[in-house]
């Protein structure tokens, strides 16, 4: 920010200090610099950089007389899934070229994608395994690291149980890595396994899946080109998903589309919108109900669609009727005329799409927000067709895949819920007896008046969300509903500064018996705390240094090939998990199905063989048709796919008729050649061409009304009405079981344990032969059935979304009318949000902390930011952590643009940052990005990083200031609303 506004001066000031030999940490030492005219004396002063490095891949001029190899991989930052082409010469990644053929990015990148080559320069990467001894980092060997970590894990397991080790995984894993890590947790015997989806779209997945079946973006970035009205709510795509804007802005231009942005900030996306609606943070539900009030009032809803495909809209209508324009304005600050205008456009200028991101999800009412959005889409008939849909932009390059593969406290891979049937399914796929897993789990004693659990019961109890792991290290063991507190954190590819209450997280880190960070960079987990021992860093390579598939936000699966070998002593996730499993004693069972090859330091499984296992088990979500061969063919034939429909023509060889990346569900086996599903729940095309319907997964009727679709079905369906999911029994009743091959029949009989009743119960999602899916689709039917979406989700805490004020609300008057939910227990932990909200009101915190603080992304950095803040090409663009404060608020506090300020949080924590005085935020609102760390409440923690691995740019984390608040359905934190006061520092 500051650099941007005064770039000339900033650059020059820095250069002046460089010449004086002061800022030695941030200069590049390449030959180019020498030859661009910097004197030798200047360089000598800078000669101390990274002296201890073992190897550096020096990029130089490409020698065009010798061969250059081009390798395709996928950008490792956001979820758009841009293809990256690396030019490799002599094993060194020497250049990046535009990937013109990718239908997703068409050659383009954002600042992050255009600079990914720097990741394997590795100036600031973690170079070898390290451990802390007496407070000092020491280099150790991989063997020693694995041995010591394994011994400590086994010791903790002995003492406190398997649940005491928390396995925090990553949205940066490949699909195969994510799946392997989930499998690792199952073999270790815990459901305490999670990843970044918890803190970005867990509420989306819960809300959307509970509405219409699956937790994913329904359409695609490309498909937004067809939309005539586009709403962004809590999404700043111009910074968070820049390449998506290529499709959106082209669509806007060609369709003359309405682009409407709802946000507390006038974002860079808003700058390109046709309408901007400023809302008070945390009032999404009243805003949506306010829009729907006008829709119902004027009869703009799609009545035919609702009658055919939606259950419960009348109940929603009753709730919406309470939200008159006056009440909406009182709560949200949005005037009636503005919402009416939006309502009319969204409902009548169709197709319309609704895009949301963390502005909607990171709330104590995150799941309810999502369900309100879904209801707006359903009421206007905007799901299941081109140009419509819930276009949920996910955050990380493989957060969709990692979610799909159950890096989640409440799922096994592919959304098989924690239940005996699901465990038995995966036991069959993994070829390990079900009882093996029962033996791996803890028995939980009766504590705090709760019932004890057998290991078999404990297997089916969701773990602790990643937002609360530190609470689980420190609160009274009686309060944690497992054998003991969390004692060990095993963190693969996850920042430590992306959830609120960092001061508490620091205490949690201090309290651990073992902390292991496996990452290309040390991350905040290595630097924030005061630990002196039992702390390990394992250098993991990036996805550019290994192969595997990743799933973009639109569910397209893309195969990335290794561009260069892992640099320094880093190694890939597969190998490290294998070595750890071997040390812990379950590698033989766990890795038995895989093709093992000699890797850099040890044996490792090939990602292809892991994907084949996924293909053998991922029936429930259609991850079965995406064989490694098909995915590789897609990468090789990217130019065949249409930019808007994402489909290749029928005559396009290996990929003929396919949708790009075989977006799931890609039904049946790879041989069945289902093309994938570009648009979910789309009854306008046959199922064999990617059609579908809403998924009936909540029973067949409710309150005497059917939950199956009425009068809507995909073309060519032989059942011309709604129907339940397919089982062997259903096939028999229809007489379609005759279409099964003997081999398929044999598999189904084996799964049904040769018992007629059990065989009839074998469903499309348990049939390992794929026969049931095949036969259903050949008869034009959706394997999971043809149901209605639920406007009312009776199994959730607020079946119809209800507005509830944030825990730290600036409006005590509204807390009285719209309090948060009562205290309760979720995910093995107490949730005392209500008590805290009352205490905030009682203490009058809104008076001493009158500014609402919200947070979000910058284009230059990603996630916790360690990787991107270590990239010199990005770091140069944003050198200071800052807070955006409105002109009036700054003036009344004597704060000047670019000056240092303290942002004081309501619970006594504070952050020292620079002020960016701007009208971008309204008076009474402040904004901070969440990518920074390395300063803690004014203290510079650069010295806590192992030498040479500290990111170039450090800064205070916004999460030092953010506060308590958790969604009851998923444990999502409240990251978007808290209170603060800002003063000059």
């Amino acid at each position: 920010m500051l650099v941007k506004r005064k770039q000339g001066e900033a650059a020059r000031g820095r250069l002046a200090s460089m010449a004086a030999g002061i800022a030695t940490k941030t200069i590049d030492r390449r030959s180019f610099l020498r030859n661009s005219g910097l004197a030798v004396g200047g360089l000598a002063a800078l000669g101390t950089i990274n002296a201890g490095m073992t190897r550096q891949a020096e990029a130089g001029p490409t020698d065009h007389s010798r061969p250059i190899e081009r390798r395709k991989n996928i950008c490792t930052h956001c979820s758009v899934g841009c293809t990256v082409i690396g030019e490799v010469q002599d094993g060194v990644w020497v250049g990046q070229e535009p990937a013109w053929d990718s239908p997703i990015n068409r050659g383009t990148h954002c600042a992050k994608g255009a600079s990914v080559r720097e990741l394997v320069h590795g100036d600031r990467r973690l170079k070898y395994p390290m451990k802390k001894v007496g407070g000092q980092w020491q280099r150790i060997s991989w063997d020693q690291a694995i041995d010591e970590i394994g011994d400590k894990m086994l010791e903790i397991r002995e003492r406190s149980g398997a649940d005491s080790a928390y396995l925090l995984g990553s949205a940066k894993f490949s699909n195969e890595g994510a799946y392997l890590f989930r499998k690792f947790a199952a073999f270790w015997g815990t459901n305490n396994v999670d990843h970044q989806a918890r803190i970005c779209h867990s509420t989306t997945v819960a809300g959307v899946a509970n509405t219409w079946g699956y937790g994913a973006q329904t359409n695609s970035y490309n498909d937004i080109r067809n939309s005539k009205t586009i709403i962004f709510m809590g999404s700043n795509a111009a910074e968070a998903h820049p390449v998506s804007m290529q499709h959106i802005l082209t669509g806007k231009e060609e369709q003359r589309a309405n682009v409407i942005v709802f946000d507390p900030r006038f974002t860079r996306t808003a700058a390109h919108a046709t309408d901007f609606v400023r809302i008070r943070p945390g009032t999404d539900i009243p805003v949506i109900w306010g829009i729907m009030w006008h829709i119902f009032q004027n009869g703009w809803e799609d009545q035919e669609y609702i009658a055919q495909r939606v259950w419960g809209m009348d109940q929603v209508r009753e709730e919406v009727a309470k939200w008159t324009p006056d009440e909406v304005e009182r709560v949200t600050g949005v005037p009636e005329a503005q919402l009416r205008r939006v309502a009319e456009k969204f409902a009548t200028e169709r197709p319309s799409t609704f895009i949301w991101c963390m502005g909607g999800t990171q709330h104590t009412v995150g799941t309810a927000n999502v369900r309100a959005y879904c209801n707006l889409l359903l009421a206007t008939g905007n799901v299941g067709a081109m140009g419509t849909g819930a276009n949920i932009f996910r955050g990380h390059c493989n957060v969709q895949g990692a979610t799909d593969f159950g890096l989640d406290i409440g799922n096994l891979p592919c959304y098989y819920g924690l239940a005996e049937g699901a465990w038995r399914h995966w036991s069959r796929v993994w070829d390990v007896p079900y009882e093996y897993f029962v033996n791996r789990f803890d028995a939980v004693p009766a504590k705090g008046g709760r019932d004890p659990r057998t290991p078999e019961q404990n297997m089916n109890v969701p773990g602790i969300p990643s937002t609360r792991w530190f609470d689980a290290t420190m609160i009274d063991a009686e309060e944690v509903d497992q054998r003991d507190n969390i004692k060990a954190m095993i963190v693969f590819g996850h920042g430590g500064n992306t959830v609120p209450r960092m001061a508490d997280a620091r205490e949690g880190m201090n309290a651990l018996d073992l902390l292991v960070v496996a990452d290309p960079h040390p991350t905040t987990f290595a630097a924030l705390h005061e630990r002196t021992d039992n702390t390990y860093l394992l250098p993991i390579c990036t996805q550019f240094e290994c192969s595997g598939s990743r799933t973009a936000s639109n569910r397209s699966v893309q195969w990335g090939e290794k561009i260069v070998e892992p640099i320094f002593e880093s190694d890939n996730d597969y190998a490290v998990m294998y070595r750890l499993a071997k040390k812990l004693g379950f590698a033989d069972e766990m890795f038995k199905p895989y093709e093992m090859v000699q890797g850099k330091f040890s044996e490792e499984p090939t990602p292809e063989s892991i994907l084949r296992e996924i293909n053998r088990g991922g029936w429930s979500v259609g991850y079965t048709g995406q064989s490694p061969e098909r995915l590789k063919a897609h990468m090789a034939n990217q130019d065949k796919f249409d930019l808007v429909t994402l489909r290749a023509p029928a005559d396009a060889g290996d990929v003929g008729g396919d949708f790009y990346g075989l977006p799931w569900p890609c039904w049946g086996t790879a041989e069945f050649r289902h093309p994938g599903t570009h648009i979910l729940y789309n009854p306008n095309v046959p199922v064999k061409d990617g059609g579908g319907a809403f998924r009936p997964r909540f029973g067949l009727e409710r309150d005497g009304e059917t939950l199956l679709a009425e009068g809507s079905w995909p073309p060519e369906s032989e059942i011309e009405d709604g129907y339940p999911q397919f089982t062997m029994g259903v096939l028999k009743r229809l007489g379609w079981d005759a279409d099964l091959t003997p081999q398929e029949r044999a598999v189904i009989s084996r799964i049904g344990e040769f018992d007629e009743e059990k065989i009839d119960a074998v469903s499309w999602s348990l049939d390992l032969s794929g026969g049931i899916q095949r036969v259903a689709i050949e008869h034009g039917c959706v394997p999971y059935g043809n149901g209605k979406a639920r406007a009312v989700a009776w199994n959730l805490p607020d079946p119809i979304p209800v507005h509830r004020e944030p825990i730290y609300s600036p409006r005590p008057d509204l807390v009285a009318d719209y309090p948060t939910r009562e205290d309760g227990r979720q995910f093995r932990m107490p949730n005392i949000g209500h008590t805290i909200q009352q205490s905030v009101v009682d203490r009058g915190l809104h008076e001493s902390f009158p500014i609402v603080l919200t947070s979000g992304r910058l284009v230059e950095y990603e996630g916790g930011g360690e990787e991107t803040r270590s990239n010199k090409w990005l770091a140069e663009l944003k050198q200071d952590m800052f807070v955006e404060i409105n002109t009036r608020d700054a003036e009344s506090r004597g704060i000047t643009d670019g000056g240092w300020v303290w942002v004081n949080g309501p619970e006594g924590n504070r952050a020292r940052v620079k002020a960016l005085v701007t009208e971008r935020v309204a008076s009474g609102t402040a904004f901070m990005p969440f990518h920074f760390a390395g300063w803690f409440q004014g203290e510079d923690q650069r010295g806590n990083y192992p030498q040479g691995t500290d990111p170039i740019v450090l800064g205070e984390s916004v999460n030092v200031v953010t506060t308590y608040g958790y969604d009851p359905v998923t444990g999502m934190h409240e990251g978007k609303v808290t209170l603060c006061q800002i003063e000059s520092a």
Partner: protein
Amino acid sequence: MARMKFLCDADRCIECQACVTACKNEHEVPWGINRRRVVTINDGLPGERSVSMACMHCDDAPCAAVCPVDCFYTTADAVVLHSKDTCIGCGYCFYACPFGAPQYPRVGNFGTRGKMDKCTYCSGGPEADMSQAEYVKYGSNRLAEGKLPLCAEMCSTKSLLAGDGDIIADIYRERVVTRGYGSGAWGWRTAYGETISV
């Protein structure tokens, strides 16, 4: 020969900075030197617009007019390049340039700034095309490889266009007609003495 130009469609630019890092990546440009940058006006206000700026390779380049040692030359593609061997780092070109393109590795008066550095339109300098000597002074030479500048090739929203001036003007014109608005071809009148009329 084609007349190469840059065109930034400000109605498409989202200030994602891909052009900036693509340039750094392609040429290994060191910290502190910005051959290309994104300028935002009305930051945070309605009407906020961003434009990606670098050397525009002007028709009658003011930098060349003021250079006391005559280190500038214009290629057959109409790209304005300079010789670092001849440059004395006086900084006159910086004052003359309407786009703030010239960059220097150091701050100081006259010769102490170091050799001037600027956007080469990805086409190197006076040394032999694609040679080591050319690379270390000016970066890579994509034009010689038959490619266009990487900043434009990687622009996230295809806001920044590079190529034959007539072709990119046609692309821009077609866009403006389709969408019904356009804030004009930024810097064209200054650089090329003309603008794009629709």
